[in-house]
């Protein structure tokens, strides 16, 4: 794949290095001359000097044939603009934008810039993952497809432990897809009995989280 990375900060530089190791063709565009010279010592011809919000700079980098544009500058407006022109003017199939200030996330969504990644969100998810009592972990939001995958840890007082998967009244639009037990994952069948300490993965339509949380969480009681 031909990938253009905009911004040679820590994120952009390391991203470029990884992508090159995976044998993709990469151009990093950096607008700060000193930073460019530093990064150029390692990445050589894979880094280009210029302001990527100037259309001719993008064209010089070959945006017309790019399969993916990743905008990871420290400026949200720049990231939005670059992704917008990449997709709408140059018809680049895939874009990824970095959100520096999570409060700008709605603006990215408004302009249809997806996916957009914010470090704050990632850390929050990591936190949810590392601190299981937080309840339910969003593993993936498939916004386009209107699906989410969540992970739930079954505690001692979970209402579903000791029950057969086949007997659970799963909300419509949700499905258990995997159980992680003792470090191994398997796909549950109707006869699978859930145990304390299981981590279950469910795919669901957005909006069913609360129902699942109630059902699998400590407050479920025995009603199911």
């Amino acid at each position, binding site marked *: 794949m031909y990938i253009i990375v905009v911004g040679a900060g820590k994120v952009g530089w390391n991203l470029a290095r990884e992508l090159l190791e995976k044998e993709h063709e990469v151009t990093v565009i950096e607008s700060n001359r000193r930073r460019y010279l530093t990064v150029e010592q390692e990445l050589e011809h894979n880094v280009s000097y210029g302001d990527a*919000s100037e*259309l001719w700079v993008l064209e010089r980098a070959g945006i017309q044939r790019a399969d993916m544009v990743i905008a990871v500058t420290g400026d949200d407006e720049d990231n939005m603009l670059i992704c917008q022109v990449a997709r709408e003017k140059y018809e680049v199939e895939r874009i990824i934008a970095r959100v520096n200030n999570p409060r700008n996330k709605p603006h990215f969504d408004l302009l249809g810039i997806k996916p957009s990644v914010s470090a704050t969100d990632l850390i929050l998810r990591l936190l949810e993952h590392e601190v299981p009592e937080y309840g339910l972990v969003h593993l993936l939001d498939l916004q386009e497809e209107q699906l989410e995958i969540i992970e739930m840890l079954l505690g001692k007082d979970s209402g579903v432990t000791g029950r057969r998967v086949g007997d659970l009244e799963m909300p419509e639009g949700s499905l258990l897809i995997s159980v992680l037990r003792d470090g191994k994952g398997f796909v549950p069948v109707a006869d699978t009995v859930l145990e304390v300490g299981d981590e279950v993965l469910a795919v669901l339509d957005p909006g069913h989280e609360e129902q699942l949380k109630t059902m699998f969480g400590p407050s479920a009681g025995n009603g199911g």
Partner: protein
Amino acid sequence: MFILIVGCGRVGSSVARGMLREGHEVSCLDEDPESHARLEVGLDKGWEDLGGQFTVGAGLETDALVAAGIEKADAFIASTDGDNTNIIIAQIAQRRYNVPTVIARILDPLRAEWYERQGLHTVCPTRVAIDMLESAVREGAPRGDGPSNGSAEAA
């Protein structure tokens, strides 16, 4: 009309004064509290005394836009010193707040041209300067003494 101007530099502040003088309601939003002073250049009364509004905040901040009155704005002018900021906030005014008249100042002619074609009303001072310089040169041409003019004079 209620006019919201984001970016209160030389251009923004002059437009703000002009619009206020014409009897419109004018609200300005700028990150820099000092830019308030620019609004009052040449005025004999304070900006607020004349009915103007001024809010400190960034154009991307929803709270600041709302405080500055974007929800009731009839016109929105994006005139910060950043092209990309102007392009993004103008689209926010258009799409999120449905402001009827939205204008973005874009210095880069290439970006201005493309966004104009996407339906954004843009003003490109650089383009205006280029056109003026070119026509000034053309008008001045008969007086020139370059090789192509020599034959023109002879004719």
